[in-house]
């Protein structure tokens, strides 16, 4: 069941902590509330993925996850009044300004805003789902499919999140899930696929990048 504006608002002030939804800060409810969603803003934190020293990405590669981050990316933290220019065909990771805490019976989904989509800005490529029990900022993928650079500023309403009430509470919410890799993140989180057991226990090694 998709939550309406009033349902979302009631969940934000639910007296029962097990049912309360946390989204903070809400700077202007009037601007941020949609009929069935809540607009979210852009934070100051970006992770740009580099390609100059990599021939390809091998999803089965098995270096330490942190090494991949350094090798493949550059972190950029802006001051609140600075800007980030996303060039055509460029792809970066960014995160919501807002910190979320979802109760065990609510799931969420982050979507772009049509106003930006019409200008070529794509928000989140494939990982828009937010698990019940998740807490932290939401990392999403930004790419510019247009032909002109796009100026992004922290605090911009970049996307929207809608919430779904589940028929029953999850038996193992995200906070209790074995191997939850992104719980209580406060910054952009890069891929931690290298921590997946299929990869950590595998023996495949990239010949080009020993």
């Amino acid at each position: 069941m998709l939550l309406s504006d009033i349902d979302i608002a009631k969940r934000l002030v639910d007296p029962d902590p097990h049912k309360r939804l946390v989204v903070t800060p809400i700077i202007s409810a009037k601007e941020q509330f949609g009929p069935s969603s809540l607009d979210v803003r852009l934070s100051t934190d970006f992770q740009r993925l580099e390609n100059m020293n990599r021939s390809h990405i091998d999803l089965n590669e098995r270096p330490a996850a942190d090494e991949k981050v350094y090798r493949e990316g550059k972190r950029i933290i802006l001051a609140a009044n600075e800007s980030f220019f996303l060039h055509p065909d460029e792809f970066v990771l960014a995160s919501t300004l807002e910190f979320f805490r979802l109760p065990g019976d609510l799931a969420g989904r982050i979507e772009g805003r049509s106003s930006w989509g019409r200008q070529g800005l794509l928000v989140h490529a494939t990982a828009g789902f937010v698990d019940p029990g998740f807490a932290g900022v939401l990392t999403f993928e930004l790419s510019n499919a247009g032909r002109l650079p796009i100026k992004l500023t922290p605090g911009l309403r970049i996307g929207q999140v809608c919430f779904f009430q589940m028929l029953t509470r999850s038996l193992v919410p995200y906070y209790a899930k074995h191997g939850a890799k992104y719980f209580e993140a406060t910054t952009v989180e890069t891929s931690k696929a290298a921590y997946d057991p299929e990869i950590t226990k595998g023996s495949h090694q990239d010949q080009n990048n020993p």
Partner: protein
Amino acid sequence: MSVTPEVRPVNALERRRFLYVLSEALEKFSRLRQILRRQQVFIRAEHAEGRSATAVDKLIHYLEEHCQMFLGNSGRVARLLRDEPLNEAEERAVTHGLRILIVHTLQIHELLLLLPREAAKPQASFLLQDCFGRKDLQASIVLTNLFSAYEYRFEDILEKVNVEQEERMALTQGGNVLCQAFGDKDNPLAWAVLAHEYGHVLDDHDAISKKILQKEATPGQVDDVTRKVEPDFGAAVIAETVADFIAAHVLGPASLMPILFVEMMQPKLRGVRRISAGHPPTPVRVQLVCEYLKQLGVTISDFEPVFEAYKLDYQRKLKDMDKDQRDGLEAMEKEAERLLSPLAKEIARKVSSLGLRRFEERDLRSARTLQQTLASKQPISSRRSRSQEDISAGLSSLKGGEVTPEQVYAVLAGLDEVPVPGSEILSAGWLYRLSSFEDVLMKTFPGETGQNVDLDAYGKYVEKTDGLLLKSLELADVHAEVLRRLSPA
């Protein structure tokens, strides 16, 4: 005939002092190890050929080695944490092990400046702008080693490293430079000291201490002090007190916390020659700042346990000094007190007239509430103006089909949050640290035997708290910026 060592019950104040020192040492160790590990990963990622032992690997090994020496006492630490008595030899062994860890951690810290890819966080600049609101006085922050950290005069540091005067002038053009310890670049709690350094910037700009020295301090008063201690001591302690009062004015009691924790962690008191770089002895600073806060109507009871432990720590270290050193320090303390006590009122008046945002008792009350939010692992950048109950009642009164959009927006506006000042975030962070570190130490040293010590548990606690405070400051910064954009021109 064997003699059973005397087992001494743990004095509550002694225990608290020990736990503060332990927590500060583990915090510094954890931060340093984290920075070095990140650097290790960076080297491995960037230089595939450098996978054999690098200098950073050696530093990590050196740090871990001395940590292991400290962990040889983990059983005794675990017992102390659980209020169990130790005999004198055991106490000495614990203290000695901790000192080894501290000394080597501080030594390694001095090499951090050689590492690339690290910069001061934008949140540190935001904190200063938010506290002082003086856009006319820009100050940049550079990362330095621990011994040069928290200095305002970058020129002095350049002079120490023999940079020619002309080059010094070129390097420091374009604003004031505050120095921050490299290891504390991710540690907002330590940034409280930057408020003191920024206090010097204001003091120099407005010539506060110079005017006080010229008009208020009688020549004999200063000359006496100067003769007994060293040239310029009188002027310097007045300037330091002005900076202390400015920091306390904008941040409240939390402004003193990093100073006290770092000093408690030092194995010894510094002698008169080294301390007299201008700072009055710390007990005098604490006393004067506490009196100033009292005048501002700000209570210090939340931080009293730290003041008490610091006092004990100072007395112990004073007792351990050579007689000459001790006499010198005591004389200096008396002189500083004699000079500053009559001037404190005037310094307070001048600082209060600067028009800075004053830290008030209500900020402390708010910080106590924010502390609880932080304990639930959420950022603490803002609060709602209306209560949950009010908003709930408003929402319940809205019936579909019977209300206009304007009525709905009026109720939803109750969900709007307002950013809290950076000083409340920082104070809440300190209150959280003081209330939570002991539980984390218990988890770090589980059981009474000291086996299964989990230093990573303390590291994660430090990292998580830093992350939440950094996020809180980022949120407050962006929140204020968005409100500026939304407000009518």
